[in-house]
């Protein structure tokens, strides 16, 4: 057991810190994770493009495809330092989801067509998985794709599609064989969002943000060359991606950034003329929360260590998802408590409260409501517990 970093890794850390300092001068202010839901497309892409220019946009991709091929430790150093510095994160849909599916299961033409534009940020991807009738029970999905010559004709609906309003492309799980067993009739299809017959309808969520959408498909013609891998083998690729998604959803670094911000708030807020952070009731809750977070950070490290040794990591991502999402929600909860009455002007569906109360109180209640999603999306925490029960405990 050894927790220290090698001299090379320390050199790498310094390189990351230098890059962050430079990026901070170039990026618009307030791009950090807490405000993500309110960012414009350009805001999202500003960080992505800086990373791309540096050659750091795809830490986990193979070198020959334009990735960094960083070691697990390097990825960890990068994620930790950027979170500590309050930097934004890149969106996972292209880089973390469809990209790896394409370079793992796609053909050469698809790799050539799609991967460079994912890296550069020229194509914005969204994820077409959930449907109104297929949430936790994803495999019951019904978006129908029927082969018609060189095309598939797609009809049906996806929902909870994050930031589809910005997307150039959507990767979809479609049903190509309705007569087969549910898992065996699904295909993985890449669809141009500009195709005739696609309608995107916003869903406003509890913090007033348009973060998700419904996407409707009405006789949408998709070239058959946009099928990834084999027809009716899509569930295999979907599962590959889901395991990938889970571990990224509620990373400790996100809670760490939020907790750092919460401590700043707790120093600024007052209780009977003293900083709130001196209140034993509040500070004990803060400490208890951080204790859980510190354990989570080491749970993450242990899983990274396993990965670094080339061992298979699967059900562990469910542990991270459950523990990480619950901690993230608790941080947002304690932040609401910290700002007291100035939580109340926030998260009003009508908006327009941008100047009410201290700066640090803005968006706090909205974030609390927004983050109710993290125990629901990417496979609800109930589903994650089922996975652990079955795959780890053998129940």
């Amino acid at each position, binding site marked *: 057991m050894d927790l220290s970093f090698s001299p090379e890794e320390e050199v790498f850390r310094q390189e990351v810190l230098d890059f962050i300092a430079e990026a901070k001068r170039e990026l618009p202010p307030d791009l950090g994770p807490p405000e993500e839901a309110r960012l414009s497309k350009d805001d999202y892409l500003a960080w992505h493009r800086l990373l791309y220019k540096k050659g750091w946009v795809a830490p986990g991709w193979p070198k020959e495809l334009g990735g960094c091929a960083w070691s697990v430790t390097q990825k960890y150093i990068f994620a930790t330092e950027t979170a500590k510095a309050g930097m934004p994160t890149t969106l996972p849909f292209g880089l973390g989801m469809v990209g790896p599916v394409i370079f793992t299961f796609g053909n050469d033409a698809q790799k050539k067509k799609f991967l460079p534009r994912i890296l550069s940020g020229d194509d914005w991807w969204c994820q077409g998985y*959930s449907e109104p*009738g297929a*949430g*936790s*029970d994803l495999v*019951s999905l019904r978006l129908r794709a029927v082969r018609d010559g060189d095309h598939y004709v797609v009809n049906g609906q996806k*929902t*909870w599609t994050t930031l589809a309003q910005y997307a150039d492309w959507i990767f979809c799980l479609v049903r190509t064989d309705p007569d087969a067993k549910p898992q065996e009739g699904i295909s993985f299809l890449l669809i141009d969002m500009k195709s005739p017959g696609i309608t995107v309808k916003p*869903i*406003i*969520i*509890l913090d*007033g943000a348009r973060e*998700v959408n419904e996407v409707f498909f009405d006789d949408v013609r998709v070239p058959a060359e946009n099928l990834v891998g084999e027809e009716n083998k899509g569930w295999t690729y979907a599962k590959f991606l889901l395991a990938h998604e889970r571990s990224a959803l509620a990373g400790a670094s996100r809670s760490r950034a939020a907790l750092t911000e919460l401590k700043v708030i707790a120093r600024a*807020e*007052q*209780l*009977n*003329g003293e900083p709130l952070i001196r*209140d034993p*009731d*509040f500070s004990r809750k803060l400490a208890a929360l951080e204790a859980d977070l510190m354990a989570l950070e080491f749970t993450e490290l242990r899983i990274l260590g396993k990965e670094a040794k080339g061992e298979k990591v699967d059900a562990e991502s469910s542990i991270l998802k459950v523990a990480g999402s619950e901690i993230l929600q608790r941080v947002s909860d304690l932040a*609401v*408590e910290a700002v*007291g*009455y*100035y*939580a*109340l*002007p*926030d*998260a*009003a*569906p*009508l*908006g*327009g*409260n941008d*100047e*009410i*109360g*201290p700066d640090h109180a803005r968006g706090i*209640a909205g974030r*609390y*409501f927004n983050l*109710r*999603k993290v*125990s*629901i*999306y990417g496979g*609800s*925490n*109930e589903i994650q*517990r089922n996975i652990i029960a079955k795959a780890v405990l053998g129940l």
Partner: protein
Amino acid sequence: MDFSLSEEQTLLRNALSRYLADRYSYEAWRKLTATPEGRDPVHWRQFAEMGLLAAPLPEAVGGLGGGAVETMVVMEEFGRALVVEPFVPTVVIGGGLLTAAGGALAEEMLPKIAGGEAVMAFAFAEPQSRYNLADLTTVAKKQGSGFVLNGRKSVVLGAPWADHLIVTARTGGAQREEKGVSVFLLEKSAKGLSSRDYAAMDSSRASEIIFEGTPARLIGEEGAAHPALEAAVDRAIAAHLAEAIGTISVLMNATVDYAKTRKQFGQPIGKFQVLQHRMVDMYIAQQQAQSASLMANLQLDDPGRARNVSAAKAAMSKYARAVAESAVQIHGGIGMTDELNVGHYFKRLMLLETLYGSPDHHLRRMANLDAEPQ
């Protein structure tokens, strides 16, 4: 021991419940909270006609001589329908403080409250005060026969709708001293009053208010209002506890209904034991919440009032949060949407958790009362 309502109380509840079902559906609420004003005063006039605004006030001033049970009945129905009308600041706070103070101002204002002619907001919180009612930097100075106010109040709920404000201010003593706290009534249109209006989390309206030499009339005794203020706020908390019962019941029913109809894995999700247990926990929380509300409301005139109310408030926050968070979780994505009612009931309960003090504040108040010499 009898927890049932009297005939009159049952009639009051049924009349209000019918009215709200007809005129204050969730769809109607969405529409009216989205208007620039955020409410429709027609409901206030109707409530006055139904006798709701007079129900808990003394008969001598045009009230119906009811008490905590009448307020509880009204608030529970309001909670079910997310009613935004300022019943608590006007009738419970304004009516309560004026009744306790008596005198000419009370005789002038109480009939107006009972008749629906006065709408009030309660301006007590300040940027630094958190939940301490005595932490005041707003000051009142004698001028002629009245007073003038200088200072600032935060998050004054319902202020954009009010024609009168009840304001706490210091007439003496140090910043957090109980001695020196006074309560005033002033007209919203008074000179030297400026406000910035906005929508709150629950789609109701609120204001930041600044007083610069604003004339005001004293309610009760100068510099000795803290006990009456605490009593009025305890009654307001008790009223909101009853409201929360109505709000929780809607979330509870919506969740159980959804779990019976939403199918995943070929069966209603309510068939999964993990969700059954979660809903059973919601139900137990609902029952405990109901008990906490009754415990506080039925003993408002007892010497143990403050401790009872704080206990119930702290416990209620825990139960309400458990029900609301589970309601969203069990609804899944659809529970996250602005369109469904669940989120708005959740938001109202979150607002009530903070209003008049967080759970920590009330647990500390209990502990401080326990530590006082016997």
